[in-house]
């Protein structure tokens, strides 16, 4: 069957630094002014030349460290490309040798990363319009499979209209992308009409599901309203809502400031796999991919906890629970819950655990190949040819056929895009 299907990467990004807010580097650098200055600097040719000089010097003094520097240089170079087309071309070059291929490109709403900061970046409407024009370009029309970024906080936009006007054959979008760690819950009542429509039409949804990655960058109070946070769930009677509400309330009342002030930690609450249960209980047929299998750390932690149940997580109890096993449970309990190996693929140890587990699991039919290009570029084996290589070596022929050919075809096929 796979002979007639293209090799599919189900998870990649081609947005550039122009699409991210000017303060986006606060993900790694706390100081706003410094983050904006570094953001300006990394976009300059002079910085690239300087980094290349460092790379050249390291060739003589520290070849190991040189590899790390080179990976960051490549990451910066890709991320600061002038257009999304440039990035897509870079990614495509890695797949040309594999025969027919297609790449899922995820647009992402990056406009609400901090309610209190302003930025002059390209907003989601412009990001999406660029993709529309790329999809029309005959060079890419059969290779590029775009997913539409949505966020319940999008102002002035009727979400259902936004989705239906883009996910159709004439415009060319295939599915929906959400990123709850930016500060919303997937069970947000504003998303209800979208999930209903997606479930009815078998439209695929992709969501970020690791504790890491980028996250809401504003203050805790700006998003949690100093504890006066109002939850409007699309399914208040869901079996998971009590423990979700308990988790939120514990966070709001958290006395440990190191937890409360650490955005990465408390954004776990938004992205927790439990948050999809109210949606899936209401729309059991919803086709949704919880990406990354929870992340390499969770995969490894799960294996460690199996060996020694006393192994502790680095999170407070109410944020704990293993995301890898939670995602496997969701895949088991709901017929259309998928996951992918993107980003996690760059971690050798995690991949060993995953390949072993999926050798004997029926869930292999709901696992997708993906890389998370180009965000993996920072990892040791994170460049696209390297990841393809790992995938082709670590998985058996039958698994490759499922992950890269058959499963993506099932996942992407909908009543709208056949």
């Amino acid at each position, binding site marked *: 069957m796979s002979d007639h299907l293209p090799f599919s990467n189900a998870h990649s990004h081609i947005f550039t630094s122009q699409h991210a807010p000017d303060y986006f580097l606060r993900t790694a650098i706390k100081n706003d002014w410094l983050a904006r200055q570094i953001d300006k600097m990394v976009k300059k040719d002079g910085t690239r*030349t300087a980094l290349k000089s460092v790379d050249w010097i390291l060739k003589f003094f520290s070849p190991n460290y040189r590899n790390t520097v080179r990976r960051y240089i490549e990451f910066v170079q890709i991320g600061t490309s002038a257009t999304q087309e440039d990035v897509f071309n870079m990614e495509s070059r890695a797949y040309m040798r594999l025969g027919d291929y297609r790449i899922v490109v995820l647009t992402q709403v990056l406009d609400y990363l901090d309610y209190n900061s302003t930025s002059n970046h390209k*907003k989601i409407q412009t990001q999406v319009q660029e993709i529309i024009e790329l999809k029309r370009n005959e060079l890419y029309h059969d290779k590029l499979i775009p997913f539409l970024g949505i966020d319940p906080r999008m102002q002035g936009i009727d979400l259902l209209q936004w989705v239906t006007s883009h996910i159709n054959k004439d415009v060319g979008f295939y599915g929906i992308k959400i990123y709850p760690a930016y500060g919303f819950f997937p069970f947000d009542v504003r998303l209800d009409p979208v999930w209903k429509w997606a479930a009815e039409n078998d439209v695929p949804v992709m969501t970020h599901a690791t504790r890491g990655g980028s996250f809401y960058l504003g203050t805790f109070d700006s998003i949690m309203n100093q504890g006066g946070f109002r939850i409007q769930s699309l399914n208040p009677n869901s079996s998971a809502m009590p423990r979700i509400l308990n988790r939120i309330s514990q966070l709001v009342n958290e006395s440990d400031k190191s937890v409360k002030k650490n955005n990465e930690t408390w954004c776990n609450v938004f992205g927790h796999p439990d948050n999809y249960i109210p949606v899936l209980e209401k729309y059991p047929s919803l086709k949704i991919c919880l990406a990354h299998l929870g992340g390499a750390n969770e995969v490894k932690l799960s294996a460690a906890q199996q060996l020694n149940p006393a192994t502790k997580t680095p999170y407070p109890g109410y944020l704990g629970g293993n995301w890898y096993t939670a995602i496997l449970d969701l895949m088991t309990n709901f017929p259309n819950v998928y996951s992918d190996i993107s980003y996690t693929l760059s971690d050798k140890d995690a991949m060993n655990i995953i390949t072993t587990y999926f050798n004997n699991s029926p869930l292999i039919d709901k696992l997708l190949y993906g890389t998370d290009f180009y965000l993996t570029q920072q990892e040791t084996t994170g460049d696209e040819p390297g990841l393809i290589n790992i995938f082709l070596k670590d998985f058996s022929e039958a698994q490759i056929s499922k992950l890269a050919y058959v499963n993506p075809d099932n996942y992407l096929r909908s009543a709208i895009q056949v």
Partner: protein
Amino acid sequence: MSSALLNSSLLQTLLCLVLCFALLSLLVSTLAEIVNSYYNERGAQLYKIISRLFDDNININFGQLLYNHPMITSLRKNINSLPQYISDTMFSQVIIEIIGNYSRNYSFDETAGAIKLASSNADIFERFKEGVSKMHYTPLKLMLMNMADRTESLSKDEHDRLAILESQIQHWYNDQMDRTSGWFKDLMRKRLRWIAFVVAITLNVDAIHLFSTLYTNPALRSDITAIAEQVADNYEKQKADTTITALQRAYNAAAAAETGKPTPDTNVLNRLIQKATQVEQMKTQQDSARLALLKSADTTLNLIGEINFPIGWTKRTPPILFFTHTSHYSAWACIWQVLLYIIGLLITAFSISVGAPFWFDVLLKLVNVRRAGKKPTTNTSN
């Protein structure tokens, strides 16, 4: 003015001080240009302004899409740079085209398996109107609609309408660009101040110490005065050339000065700039302008090094002087000395941030004033 005053120690000291400020402000201006070229501020600012013209947070930002248009991408120096200038004609043409394209209809062709362009209105003006009507309602949409209405009320002819619409968009664009130029000047003023402050500290130029040393050292004053006159003469010659910028004139005047002393190689900043020059040489073809600026900064630093100004981090200058001085200061005297030193640095920073052309003009005037009071040299050969 009496001859005594014109040849006085005070005037000579001022002349030396102005030469020092002129050269340092030349260095500051050159460094500011290097920073500007590195940040491509003009290109980035132009992008920002064009983005803001169309930023209503709900519609597609046509200003940002403009940068993907083939006519604009061809203006880029390299794949990642932004064009420093977009003419009003090009801006209006491209914007009308982009908004017009937004109105075009596309549909999936089952046979070809691809999205194809369906029939569209052939009239560019009408396409523009349809594109605007597809936008979400915001003040921006209303403004563009009004532009189209005004155009229609002025002419019904297809070609005239397009020309009128272009002209309206050009006016709008040019008004915004005028503001940009004011903003850019403000930014440069602030940047010059910061760079001046960094230069004053890095080269340790305490204006008060500089003045007092020059005033009490006739031999040093005499040496520097000769160079000051030479630089002023060079500058006067350069002023005749109206084809170059004021900064370039100042640079040429300084570069042509002969001190008769070997170039010192002890200045750390100087060496750093030489290294930077080597790095820049690796990509000369990409940016020869930046390399030329680095060389200018290098030359100016060399000249400052050749002239024996009482500046730099030496035992003869504050603040190191405070620790090496043999006599003991009282606590209050120490505080007073440190305060004077800080004031001296601030005076220098403020002075050298006003721009090289200003100080070169002052230098020229002072030299002329001094010469006006000099006795004519007796020509013994006659």
